[in-house]
C-alpha cells in the first residue's frame, strides 16, 4: 500500500500536520503563541513610508521560481508579501512596480494588487493593476538585465525581494544598494542568503519568509500554524542528536528506520 522508502516521510508529515492543527486550534481558543520579532518584516511599513515621502516607487519581486515546482512555497510566500505591500502602497499613495519572470504569475499578482487597492478604497488605481506588474523575460539573465535597467531608471526608494532567487540575487541587491533603496530580501535558497545578508538592509533567512504572511497579518490561526513549525524543528533536532549517538555507537537502527 505504501511506497517503499517513504514511510518515515509520511509519518513525520502527519506528525507536523497534527502539531500545526493543534496549535491552530489552541490559537483559535485564544491562547496565542508569542512570535519573536523579525526586524526585516517590521521594516516593510517604514520602507513603503520612505518611498512615499521621497515620491519614488516601491519595487517588489517574488523571485524567478514558479508555482509548479519545488520552489512554489517560496513564490507563494512572496505573493503574500506582494499583497501586504500593495495594501500599504494603496494606503500611503506610493507607486508600486512588480517585475515578474513567469508569465503565469502575472494574472495572480495582478489579482492580488487589484484586491489590495480595492480593499483600501482605491478602485481607480486598482483598475491599473495590470500596469504595475511588469513582465520582463522568461530567461533568467534576460529577466535580470531588464530588472537592473528598471532599478537604474526608476530609482526606487524601497526594494523588496521575497521568493526563490538564484545567481541573479546579488546583482539585483547590489544595484538596489547603488540606487540607495532600502532593501528587504529573503529566500530559502541557502546559497543566496549570504548575498542578501551582505548587500541588503534586512535579510529574511529561510523559514522567516514562510512565516511572513502570518507575522504581518497577525491572524491568530496563521500565527498558531507558525508555532506548529517549532515541533517539526524539535523533532529534527532530537533525530540529529539521537542519530549522532547511535551512529557513533555503531547502531544503525535510526538510519534503517528513516530509510524504510
Amino acid at each position, binding site marked *: 500500500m*505504501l511506497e517503499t522508502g517513504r514511510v518515515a516521510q509520511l509519518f513525520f508529515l502527519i506528525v507536523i500536520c497534527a502539531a500545526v492543527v493543534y496549535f491552530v486550534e489552541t490559537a483559535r481558543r485564544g491562547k496565542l503563541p508569542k512570535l519573536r520579532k523579525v526586524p526585516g518584516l517590521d521594516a516593510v511599513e517604514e520602507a513603503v513610508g520612505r518611498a512615499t515621502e521621497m515620491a519614488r516607487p516601491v519595487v517588489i519581486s517574488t523571485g524567478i521560481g514558479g508555482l509548479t515546482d519545488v520552489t512554489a512555497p517560496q513564490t507563494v510566500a512572496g505573493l*503574500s*508579501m506582494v499583497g501586504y505591500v500593495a495594501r500599504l502602497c494603496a494606503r500611503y499613495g506610493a507607486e508600486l512596480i512588480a517585475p515578474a519572470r513567469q508569465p503565469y504569475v502575472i494574472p495572480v499578482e495582478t489579482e492580488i494588487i487589484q484586491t489590495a487597492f480595492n480593499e483600501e478604497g482605491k478602485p481607480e488605481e486598482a483598475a491599473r493593476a495590470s500596469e504595475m506588474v511588469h513582465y520582463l523575460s522568461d530567461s533568467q539573465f534576460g529577466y535580470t538585465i531588464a530588472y537592473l535597467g528598471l532599478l537604474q531608471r526608476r530609482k526606487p526608494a524601497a526594494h523588496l525581494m521575497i521568493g526563490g532567487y538564484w545567481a541573479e540575487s546579488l546583482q539585483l541587491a547590489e544595484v538596489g544598494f547603488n540606487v540607495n533603496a532600502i532593501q528587504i530580501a529573503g529566500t530559502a535558497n541557502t546559497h543566496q542568503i549570504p548575498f542578501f545578508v551582505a548587500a541588503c538592509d534586512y535579510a529574511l533567512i529561510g523559514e522567516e519568509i514562510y512565516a511572513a*504572511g502570518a507575522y504581518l497579518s497577525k*491572524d491568530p490561526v496563521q500565527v498558531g500554524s*507558525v508555532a506548529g513549525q517549532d515541533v517539526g524543528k524539535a523533532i529534527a533536532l532530537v533525530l540529529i542528536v539521537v542519530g549522532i549517538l547511535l551512529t557513533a555507537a555503531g547502531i544503525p537502527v535510526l538510519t534503517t528506520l528513516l530509510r524504510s
Partner: protein
Amino acid sequence: MSFYKRKELPIVITALCALLMICAYFFKIPEAKSASTTVQTWMLVMVNFSVVVGFVMVIRMHKRRIDKRQPGDKSWLYSVWLIVLLIAYVLLGIYGVESTRTAAPTNDWTFNWVFTNALVALDSAMYSLLAFFIASASFRAFKARTKEAGVLLISGAITMLYNAPAGSAIFGPLAPSFNDLGDWILNVPNMAGFRGILIGAAVGAISLGIRVLTGRERGYLGAGE
C-alpha cells in the same frame, strides 16, 4: 459576489490537487498515480499557454512606453527594437516548424544560430558580471566593525585563499595544514549553519503547505488579511 470570483473555489481546487499529489507520492494506488500524471500534463499545457500572456504583456508595456515618449528622450527606440526582435524571432520559430515539419523549431539553422550566438552569449556575459558584484559586496560585508563581522572577515579570507592557488603559494610548507583549516571551515561550521537553515526552511514550507491546503493562507489569492 459572483460564483467565479469567490475565493472558496480556488481553495477547494488547490486542496484537491494537493491531496491527489500526496496520495500519488506516498501510496501505491495506480488510479491516483494516473490522475496525478494527467493533472501534471494539464499543468504543463496551461503553463505553456501562459507564454502568450507574457508575449502580450511585453508588447503592451513597450507600446505604452512608445506612446508616452517625451521629446529629447530616445529610450523609446529600445522598445521599438525589442518589439521588432520579439516578433521576428517568433516568426523565425514558426518558419522553422514549417520548413522542417517537426514540432521542434530548434531544427532550423537560423533559429539555432541566433540562439547560440546572441542569447547564450549574452546570458554568459551577464553571469560573468557576477564576479564584480561579489567583489563589491564582499568589500562592504568584510569591514570588521563588529566581532561577528571580524569572524566573517577571517573565515572569508581563509576560504578565499584556500580556494585560490595563491593560498598554497603563500603558505608554502604550511599549505597542507592551511588546506585542512579551509576544509574544516567549509565542512563543519559552514555546513552546520546551512543544514540548520535548510531544516528550518523545509519545515516552514510544510507549514505553509498545510495553511494553503486548509485555506488559512490566502495571500496568494489576493486576500492578505
